[in-house]
């Protein structure tokens, strides 16, 4: 096997096995830093050995055993108490890491405990996200810092503090008991959803690590679905990620300008992701326990299944947002319902909902509110009012592609030639 092939196998193993090895090492040693260091050592050793000795039949088992042996060595050198070492040895098999046929059988997948611990509600959202990327996805501190646009030292401190809190405050390393599970599952899903959104909203020029957050979220959502096969909301999130990610390449044009769903080149959508997303969503919905992620995925599915923008089933989308608003009342959901109603029943009906929202004051400062109002007014031919609303949206917009989109619309409504 060539060095290049070994590199490819290792890259694959890294994605598949890093989180698994770290998760097991944390369970066995109770020490998060040691777990990360030993996992790193195991991958370094693989890079050294595999080109000469060949890739082991079960790379994951080889890596876990190697990392565990390394942990015992390190603890021995640190003269850790005999009792702790005995305890560690009990969980260790004496197998040669190269001969791994039996080693894998005894190693349970500990990633679920790791996910729940990283996403414990006693940790801040920033800490949850950083821990998840470091321990489960194997991103380096420098990469996480780049992805979230903070200095590396800041991210490093954040990780140290989070691990300190887990240790010192006694956050348990486990899958929560049944009565805590629903809320804790929501917390895990929330972190993965945030990761995906961070990557999805990154502009085309953004750092690759930042854009790759979508890929990390997708990978972790797949792992979660595999580990919690009876959780429809995990499937809902996976479907949501797949269906959105499928459109990613068509969201901005060659010069980095935002392309709205209506104008996206649908032939550029990733068909395999859409098919997978639809089938995962179908499986989830058949369980008869709908939730916010399944409903949002169902909206995305309506778009994915429409051959052209004009074919979109806006009545269905409006109904889905209505259902979503019942489950999780939120002004943003209500705004989306307004957009859908505006498409299904006409701009006047949409404007009615958006006006009610504006009067409630719930979305003050959120640029999509005046932007939506502006679009509805433009479609009603009320150009002066539309222009005014576009100007208001421009005052509140945050990203450049969105600003350019609004400016383009504003020019259209004020240009007498159009």
């Amino acid at each position, binding site marked *: 096997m060539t060095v290049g092939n070994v590199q490819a196998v290792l890259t694959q193993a890294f994605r598949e096995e890093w989180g698994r090895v770290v998760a097991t090492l944390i369970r066995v040693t109770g020490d998060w830093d040691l777990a990360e260091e030993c996992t790193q050592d195991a991958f370094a050793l693989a890079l050294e050995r595999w080109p000469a000795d060949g890739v082991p039949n079960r790379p994951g088992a080889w890596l876990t055993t190697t990392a565990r042996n390394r942990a015992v060595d390190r603890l021995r050198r640190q003269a850790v108490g005999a009792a702790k070492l005995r305890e560690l040895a009990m969980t260790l098999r004496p197998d040669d890491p190269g001969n791994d046929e039996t080693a894998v059988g005894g190693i349970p997948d500990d990633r679920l405990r790791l996910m729940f611990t990283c996403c*414990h509600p*006693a940790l801040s959202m920033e800490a949850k996200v950083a821990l998840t990327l470091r321990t489960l996805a194997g991103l380096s501190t420098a990469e996480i810092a780049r992805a979230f646009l903070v200095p590396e030292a800041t991210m490093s401190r954040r990780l140290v503090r989070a691990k300190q809190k887990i240790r*010192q*405050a*006694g*956050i*348990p390393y486990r899958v*929560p008991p049944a009565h*805590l599970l629903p809320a804790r599952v929501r917390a895990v899903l929330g972190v993965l959803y945030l990761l995906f959104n961070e990557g999805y909203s990154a502009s085309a020029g953004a750092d690759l690590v930042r854009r790759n957050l979508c890929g990390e979220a997708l990978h972790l959502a797949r792992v979660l679905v595999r580990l919690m096969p009876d959780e429809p909301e995990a499937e809902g999130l996976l479907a949501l990620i797949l269906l959105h990610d499928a459109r990613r390449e068509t969201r901005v044009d060659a010069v980095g300008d935002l392309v709205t769903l209506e104008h996206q080149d649908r032939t550029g959508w990733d068909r395999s992701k859409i098919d997978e997303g639809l089938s995962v969503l179908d499986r989830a919905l058949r369980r008869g326990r709908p939730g916010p992620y399944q409903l949002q995925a169902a909206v995305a599915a309506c778009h994915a299944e429409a051959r052209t923008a004009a074919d979109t089933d806006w009545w269905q989308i409006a109904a889905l947002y209505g259902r979503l608003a019942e489950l999780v009342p939120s002004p943003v959901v209500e705004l989306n319902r307004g957009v859908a109603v505006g498409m299904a029943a006409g701009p006047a009906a949409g404007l009615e909902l958006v006006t009610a929202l504006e009067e409630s004051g719930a979305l003050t400062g959120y640029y999509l509110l005046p932007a939506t109002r502006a679009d509805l007014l433009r479609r009603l031919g009320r150009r002066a009012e539309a222009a005014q609303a576009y100007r208001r949206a421009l005052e509140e917009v945050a990203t450049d592609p969105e600003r350019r989109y609004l400016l383009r619309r504003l020019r259209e409504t004020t240009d007498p030639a159009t």
Partner: protein
Amino acid sequence: MRYMLLICGEEPETSGSEGSADLPGCDGWAAEMARRGVLLGGAGLQPSGTATTVRVRDDEVLIVDGPFAETKDQIGGFALIECADLDEAIEVASSHPAAGRWSVEIRPIWE
């Protein structure tokens, strides 16, 4: 693990005997937690108007009338508990009658 529960919240305007010591349900909570073997100790505190704060600087004892920080929220009581982990401490803290009205801060003790 041992944790200190700090009952924090806005103090009632009234002075004197009015205060968190009067919070209904505290005794029942304490009895239940003692029965479970969770509660190691605790008490309600008199209002912060009764507090005296002491600092020693250059061997001089500085005495100030009032709590260590003049904030809207003050500590009105505490409980020392022994729990398996933070999840159990959260469960114990959220069952405290004060949690429905004020806040309960959970602080692990240095072991």
